């Protein structure tokens, strides 16, 4: 008799667990160590060259239980929007967590005793900033690749005004880095995926606020004139 409930339960459990997205640890960037003590919070790296996923490994070197949060700017400009967290780190143990960041400022908070606002350390991520309340949210993802003579996968791209798109560029070139700069209808820079090495993937979240024709190009050397350029329409 108990066999059937057991099966249903396993299925239910898997379904619940399936809600989560299991992603592999960040391949390009190394793990960033955080040493969290009873009154200290040492973050091994506080400046990041590009948006993406940062893998943290928190070691509790204190005597009290601790938790670590990464905050982005919430409404009102204070750092209170959770970008990632790990709780229940017992003394002498380590816990890992990942945080997806776009360009901008963040704060790491170690909270010994799991209370209060914690010991804060500022983080800065270079790259396209997403203004507004949600630091890491975007409406959809656009994946494309960059060869030495063209961007592939952007033909026919259109977007709605106000849409926030995460552009993900895989550089399929064998030996040249490429970047992806986007200019709005007024010719001003909207944002960019910074220089991305051969075989790697770069990401940026861009908010396309106004309607019109946007242009994009690779700003490295003479790549744009070799064909790494194009445009798309925002309605």
């Amino acid at each position, binding site marked *: 008799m*108990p066999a059937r409930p057991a099966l249903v339960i396993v299925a239910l459990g898997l379904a619940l667990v399936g809600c989560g997205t299991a992603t592999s*640890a960040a391949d390009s960037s190394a793990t960033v160590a955080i040493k969290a003590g009873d009154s200290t919070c040492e973050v091994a790296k506080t400046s990041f060259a590009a948006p993406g996923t940062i893998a943290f490994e928190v070691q509790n070197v204190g005597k009290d239980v601790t938790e670590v949060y990464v905050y982005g700017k919430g409404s009102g400009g204070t750092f209170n929007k959770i970008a990632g967290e790990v709780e*229940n780190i*017992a003394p002498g143990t380590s816990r890992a967590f990942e945080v997806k960041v776009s360009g901008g400022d963040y704060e790491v908070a170690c909270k010994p*005793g799991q209370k209060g606002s914690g010991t804060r350390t500022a983080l800065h991520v270079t790259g396209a900033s997403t203004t507004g309340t949600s630091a890491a949210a975007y409406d959809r993802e656009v994946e494309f690749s960059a060869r030495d003579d063209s961007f592939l996968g952007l033909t026919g791209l259109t977007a709605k005004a106000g849409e926030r798109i995460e552009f993900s560029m895989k550089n399929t070139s064998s030996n040249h880095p490429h970047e992806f700069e986007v200019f709005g209808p007024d010719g001003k820079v909207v944002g960019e995926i910074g220089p991305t090495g051969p075989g790697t993937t770069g990401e940026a979240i861009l908010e396309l606020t106004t309607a019109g024709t946007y242009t994009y190009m690779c700003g490295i050397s003479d790549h744009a004139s070799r064909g790494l350029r194009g445009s798309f329409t925002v309605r």
Partner: protein
Amino acid sequence: MFSVPTFLIGLREGLEASLVVGILIAYLVKLGRRDAVSSLWVGVVAAVVLSLGFGAVLQFTSANLSFEAQERFGGFASLVAVGFVTWMVFWMRRTARFLKTELHGRLTTALTLGPLALALTGFVAVGREGLETALFLWSAVQSTQQPVVSTSSAFGGLLASVVLGYAFYKGALNLNLKTFFTWTGAALVVVAAGVCSYGIHDLQEAGLLPGLNTLAFDVSNTIAPSSWYGTLLKGIFNFQPATTVLQAVAWVAYLAPVLWLFFRPSRAAVPAPTPQQTASV
């Protein structure tokens, strides 16, 4: 050597599930349905095994669960657990009335909601915090600094929670029937209200619900979350020293009507609401 903070986390994470399972088993035993207890255990064991297994995958491989996914899981699983436990409480309240009036044989029919429902209740009661607890346990095992201390303290805390759940179960069995059904049921409702509030907070952290930074009160300087009393308050009532407004509202919105329904004089199994007539069945 022993790590008190680590012990207290283990105690906190395990306490509420132990209490719920302890009360449910006591109920079944009181109803003379020891045979149904095994169904409950199926759910409990399945939740423990799944949590430990999935936690091990996350801790020992490069696989990662985003914090939003983990919070969403914790949040929704908590709300599902509240649903099951509430439903269980009212089912038992109804069943308990048979005890007074009906022959024992009729109980078997009353229990037809059967093994699956019991197993699922055991599963969600334990599983909702299972993953977080498993991650905590595995990180203790994996500790490079003091693996023995961390592991023994963490497991010691969990064990203590099980002992407390068992003590509650034993103590509850000594109560007379009427007192037992009234107070253990009410206790379950109060625990479920805490789980509900906790689930809301998880969903706020995941960004699915607003108001994470709008606190109703913050007494974390008076009642430290890592103190023994903070641990017990959190473990039993899910009391969070820094509680958001939405959490407080959810707690009251659940507790008030459900307790009212629970303590309302039981009426005969007639659907039409005629409270005056049947006030003292």
